[in-house]
């Protein structure tokens, strides 16, 4: 199953704390590898916390775990991930004359990779 979403990479408190603790340590790595998905999208796609998905943009591909976003933080159709190595792999090199690659609002295709055995 493949669906199109808009991905917003951004800062989180845990990601910020993880930078100070060390980028190779568990907190930082967990945060930048967790994709937040709106509860409505989680239900529709049959996803549960911890399922793995593949995100494919025009410029790259990554595999991450999903977590449901809290409350109504995300509208349906929008994904969020903490800035880092993973989100940057989906950016292109072109900065359109600005010096800044398009780093937010990235079009991605989402493929569900695996579900827990119980489902």
């Amino acid at each position, binding site marked *: 199953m493949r669906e199109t979403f808009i991905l917003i990479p951004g800062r989180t*408190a845990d990601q910020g704390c993880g930078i100070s603790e*060390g*980028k190779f340590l568990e907190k930082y790595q967990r945060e930048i590898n967790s994709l937040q998905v709106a509860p409505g999208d989680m239900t529709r796609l049959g996803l549960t916390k911890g399922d793995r998905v593949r995100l494919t943009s025009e410029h790259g591909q990554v595999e991450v775990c999903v977590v449901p976003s809290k409350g109504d933080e995300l509208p349906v159709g929008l994904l969020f991930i903490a800035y*880092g190595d993973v989100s*940057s792999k989906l*950016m292109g090199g072109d900065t359109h004359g*600005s010096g800044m690659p398009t780093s937010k*609002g990235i079009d991605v295709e989402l493929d569900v990779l695996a579900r827990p055995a119980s489902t």
Partner: protein
Amino acid sequence: MSAAVAAPGEAPAVEESLKVIQDATCTFCGCVCDDIDLTVKNNHIVEAKRACVLGKAWFLNHKTEDRPSCLIDGQPASLDAGYDRAADILVTGKYPIIYGLSDSPCEAQRVAVSIADWINGTIDTTTSVCHGPSGMAFQGVGEVTCSLGEVMNRGDMIMFWGSNPAESHPRHFTKYSLMPKGMFVPNGRKDRTCVIVDVRKTKSAKAADIFIQIKPRADFEGLWTLRALAKGVDLDPVQVQHDTGVELTVWQDLMQRMKAAKFGVIFFGMGLTMTRGKHANSEALLALTRDMNAYTRFVAKPNRGHGNVTGADNVVAWRTGYPFGVNHSRGYPRFNPGEYTTSDTLANGEADSGMTIACDPMANFSEPARRHLATIPFIALDTKETPTTRAAAVAFTVATYGIHTGGTVYRMDDVPIPLRPSCESPNPSDFEVLSQIERRVKALVGVTG
């Protein structure tokens, strides 16, 4: 156990087992809070009073890593050998780049600019992938601005656009923008209206009186809707709803409130600069701010991320005339974002050597940029091991600014703040490393004095 209180600026005494550093400066984010009381036990910070969650992580994890001060090709080396190799790399390159600097004090930034000048190199800071587009917009539109102190004392209409300070600048609300009681807002939060515009209902949205959730990639359209309303232009409700995802009546209500404010402030974040439109988004916001001054006092401030990214803009500007993305290959500075900015010089395969200072392009840049960086010799200065230091030909482990070393940083509102170090480090500061490299570079290019 002995205890002592060190006065601001006073060097900490090594033999003391317990001391308190009053009014220390946190350099994690652009708020640069300078009211932190640090308790230091055996050269280690055990308490950071008044620090936010990010500040606590910054101070309490400062421990010196068990890593050599210098690695050459991954092997431990003397500092002198590292300085020699670094200078050789920079001087040998035909298109050397220097990049980073947002987590270094102004004194070190100044030396880095000098090195770029001696080697006819390109110097750029992390501003280019942060508020670089806003820097371009400042040049195009101008900046109606003020200090955070004025916000605290006067601001009665506080807006955040594409910014989530609850997670990126946790003390922003309480120290500067929403909660403080000020001279003209004596009741603090009760005297202020808070509006947040974002594509996500972020944790910051809980602090808002009005939250406006716009369509992704519709910031430009939302800002121009407000510009039109400020000028009294009639708009088609269907078109506005379609373009922004928000009803025209919501924008009209917001504009009425903005005009009724006595002192309005728009803080804006990378929700604008990193999204399609980039500098055009920032230009629209700055132009709206300018427009509002026909009716009342309004200012705009970018919420800056790193502790001294604002200092980097200032230092590079007063050394070269431009804030970032500056090329010296013709012997004089030239500015051209999109050409001399590091994302471009790397992704386009142009840079052939480099030096990164307090940044991590091997983790944060696009794949084409990372791939190219991995193929060229470069020097990395950082307090911790990162993907970038691992890939560097020469990696210096440096002391942490504001914790181990002093100096000056600029708060996000361009106010310079002194640092008050609390601990000692076995590693050199980035100022020391850069000064040593500069000395060798000057010798290699034949500059005396």
